[in-house]
């Protein structure tokens, strides 16, 4: 069913969404204004924009971690709230957010534990997930014993452990060094292809957005609005792709959109 309906069903559909923080007070902030956005199932969408443009806020509206002040957010045709309760999405934050008192497998098993899975099922799934992110031999390690890139891989494994159809990522590679970051991007694309999960990815890196996405959504700040949507098609990407003229062209397009945003 999921395969058949690919590119037909909307994974996320946002209509006229506004978000105001601290309404009717002195420090009222209009974070988002009139957001319309459709994300098709199987897409890889990046949200990019200068700081304060509300890209993380937008991600949190989809996740139902924040509620829009006006407008509507639908995830797989349901309200965002229902989608969260049904655990239709997994989330990855900038700081891996692994619990340092749990070893790698126990971290990956956390959402399964909360769902009441049996121990045997949990172990089987965390083993699969560790294979997916290629960290099999680190299953008994504690987060502090891992590098930043490895921690982020565990975090991805945890987010995907219950096979959500949507993966929400909030600057997941923001704290990594450049080489690790590029490696993680290739890994993420491999995982995206292998699992067929829809990804919404918040970043402030132009090459990262251009390299990963099928569509880059550029936001402008104060109040946060969608400035433009740029479709990217780099086909199967490898590290070699970063030296292709098509990649250069895609980054240029995103960069110019951001310059237009800055110019107001």
């Amino acid at each position, binding site marked *: 069913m999921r395969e058949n309906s690919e590119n037909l069903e909307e994974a996320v559909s946002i209509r006229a969404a506004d978000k105001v923080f601290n309404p009717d007070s002195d420090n009222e902030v209009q974070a988002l204004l009139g957001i319309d956005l459709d994300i098709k199932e199987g897409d890889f969408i990046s949200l990019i924009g200068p700081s304060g443009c509300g890209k993380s806020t937008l991600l949190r509206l989809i996740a139902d971690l924040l509620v829009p002040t006006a407008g509507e957010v639908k995830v797989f045709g349901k309200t965002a709230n229902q989608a969260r309760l049904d655990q239709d999405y997994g989330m990855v934050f900038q700081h891996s957010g692994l*619990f340092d008192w749990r070893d790698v497998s126990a971290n990956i098993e956390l959402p399964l534990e909360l*769902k009441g899975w049996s121990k045997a099922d949990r172990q089987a799934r965390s083993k699969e997930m560790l294979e997916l992110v290629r960290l099999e031999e680190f299953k008994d390690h504690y987060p502090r014993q891992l590098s930043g890139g490895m921690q982020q891989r565990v975090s991805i494994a945890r987010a995907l452990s219950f096979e959500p159809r949507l993966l929400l990522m909030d600057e997941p590679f923001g704290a990594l060094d450049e080489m690790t970051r590029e490696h993680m991007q290739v890994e993420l694309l491999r995982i995206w292809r292998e699992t067929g999960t829809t990804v919404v990815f918040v970043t402030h890196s132009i090459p990262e957005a251009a390299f990963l996405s099928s569509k880059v959504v550029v936001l402008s700040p104060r109040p946060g609005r969608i400035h433009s949507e740029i479709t990217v098609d780099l086909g199967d990407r490898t590290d070699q792709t970063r030296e292709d003229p098509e990649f250069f062209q895609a980054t240029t397009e995103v960069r110019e959109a951001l310059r237009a945003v800055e110019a107001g």
Partner: protein
Amino acid sequence: MTKRKAIKTAFTVIVSLVLLVLLWEGYKWMGQQTEDHWPGTQLGLPVSTDDLTMPHASDIFNELTDEIRAGRETLPMTVYLAKKAAFTFLEAAIGFSLGVIVGLMLAIFMLRWRFAEKGFLPWINVSQTVPLIALAPIVVTWARLQGYPDMVGISLIATYLTFFPVAVSGLRGLQSPDSSDVELMRSYAASWSSTLIKLRLPAARPFLFPAFKLAATLSVVGSIVGEISIGTKTGLGRAILDFAQRYSVWPERLYSSVIAASLLGLFVFGLVNAAEWFFIKRGREVLK
């Protein structure tokens, strides 16, 4: 703990004990030479160095192995003190356990309802400004009037001292997770109690164990003060009270009971340390 580390710890303990004895005896010797004045001055020493005020360290240690008559039987001092200490330990352990339970419950209550934090925290702070010496007889008298053994009242006094650090540090620890950790639990549609059990309580452990260590030593202090202020029949407080009355005859005895009290404090501190190692640090050393 590795063997190497254990040897190092034991070595440190022995060296500091030796230094303490040397300091004691050195000061005493100096005072004896100068008739209790700072050398070369007319300034008096803060503590007199005669054998009544400062018995020789060797006399105090000898006293520990000497025999003492307790009722009809005669016991070595160590055994006598150990028996008293065991009783005090029991009171302290009950007080500590109750204090931890009450403290944690208060912390969770204040976490759940912000108004409780605003309303309770000042009173929790005020509670600790009441002098223990004044409070102890009141609590024990209440317990006595209701027909409870003195032990109950004394344990309650220990509870009164121990709940405080647990409640205050516990609240800080429960509030310590990053907002993204809380968001993560929310993204799993985790209930408030699952978030408490899977995230907040484990995250609070590094805040709780230092509080437990403080609470453990306070529970011993609370029990002894409780015993002394109501004059129980047994416990280290009783021993201290008895020996204090005969201080002019047998000063070594009071010192030996003081040593017993501090050893008991060290013992409970060590127990909490062991628990901390078991619950937090075991197998989690960062690989180099």
